[in-house]
């Protein structure tokens, strides 16, 4: 799976970093999403799906 982020949409809520901390982090300077792993393993899928559903800004998408 490939994870895509849209920094312009991100509002820094941090729910992705909470849901999938191995895949997402936040920038120190403004809390905007940082993608740690653009192609996470299958074991991360439920966590990434959770991050997608909890992102208030629809800033994360997953492509196969």
């Amino acid at each position: 799976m490939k994870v895509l982020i849209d920094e312009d949409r991100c509002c820094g809520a941090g729910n992705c970093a909470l849901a999938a901390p191995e895949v997402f982090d936040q920038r120190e300077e403004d809390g905007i999403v940082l993608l740690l792993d653009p192609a996470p393993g299958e074991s991360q899928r439920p966590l990434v799906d959770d991050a997608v559903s909890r992102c208030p800004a629809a800033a994360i998408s997953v492509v196969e």
Partner: protein
Amino acid sequence: MTETMSAPAFPTQRQCPFHPPQEIGEVRDGEQPISRVSFPSGDTGWMVTRHADIRAVLTDPRFTVRNRRFVFSSQKQETPPPRRGMLLSMDAPEHPAYRKLLTREFTVRRMQHLRPRIQQIVDEHLDAMAAKGGVVDLVEALALPVPSLVICELLGVPYADREHFQTVTADLLRLDITFERRQAAVDEFDRYLGVLVKTKRLDPGEDLLSDLIARADAGDELLDDEVLVSFAFLLLVAGHETTANMIGLSTAVLLENPDQLALLREQPELADKAVEELLRYLTIIHLALQRTALEDVEIGGQLIKKGELVALSVSAANFDPALLDEADRLDITRQPVAHLSFGFGPHQCLGQQLARMELRVVFSTLFTRFPTLRLAVPISEVPFRTDMAIYGVHELPVRW
């Protein structure tokens, strides 16, 4: 088209203190999940109840937050004057620019760094509670002071001045407050914060307010004293009362659900999941979030016309069968769902990771420290905050 029939009142009467009014669920699961309602203020508008519909409204830029008439008060309401830097009443593109000035202070990582200090604050208050013994009001002993002290330290507001913001906040959240008294409370608080900003400029500390003042003085074009006061106002008011009520109300509901309480006492590591479930189940933003349509918009098959008000019942959404099974059951072992207790969209609660951290510390500690904690009065005698904009308990007498 003119209205020929008055709309039914937005339901606010609870049958059970821990559940949203039944009628809201009936509307959500019925033929017209978006329906015309009237509000205590005399306004009419739409009540939106389904999780998907509310998320659609909250992420649609065709709805504005700028019209902030408070419709859940029966007192005559006017639209408060706009103020710069008040995130709650700003739309894009100004809103994200201002919000971004604060997001770095509330990242998941920052909150993890705060955890040891939050734990220390919670432990100190539990020690004081233990030393006192007898019947203790948990709101006064723990629920209110912990988040108040945390937000004071984070912002750099003297905790000794807490009377200022606790009293003002209590006033602001009363549903029956007159518009004039509300504005007077706001003005008084603004004066206090204006003085605080000037004092901090001369004597900065290691805190958020000093940091923002330094950025303002270094020429950040968005930051000036009016904005700094708005930020401090928002963070103080939103930062203590909400979490305080989650602590009080969560303790009450756990004491009434001994099986769930036993699980949490025996497995404090369940606290993370428990907090998420308590946020969903209790939905202290118990009335509605408000938005106004800037143009004609169709939501969930219903046309909302330009200028019409929508009231988003997040509590109805948090019990939506489309979101989760057996929503009426409190289950602290549940996989967390995308509940709307912090809102959704660009205005989703800025302080949510701080709130989570405080609640996780409290609920991984309270019942291991006081395993025999129980209510000191029957639940029917506990005063619930049906008269306030944020739900909770006014007092929670406990013993152990």
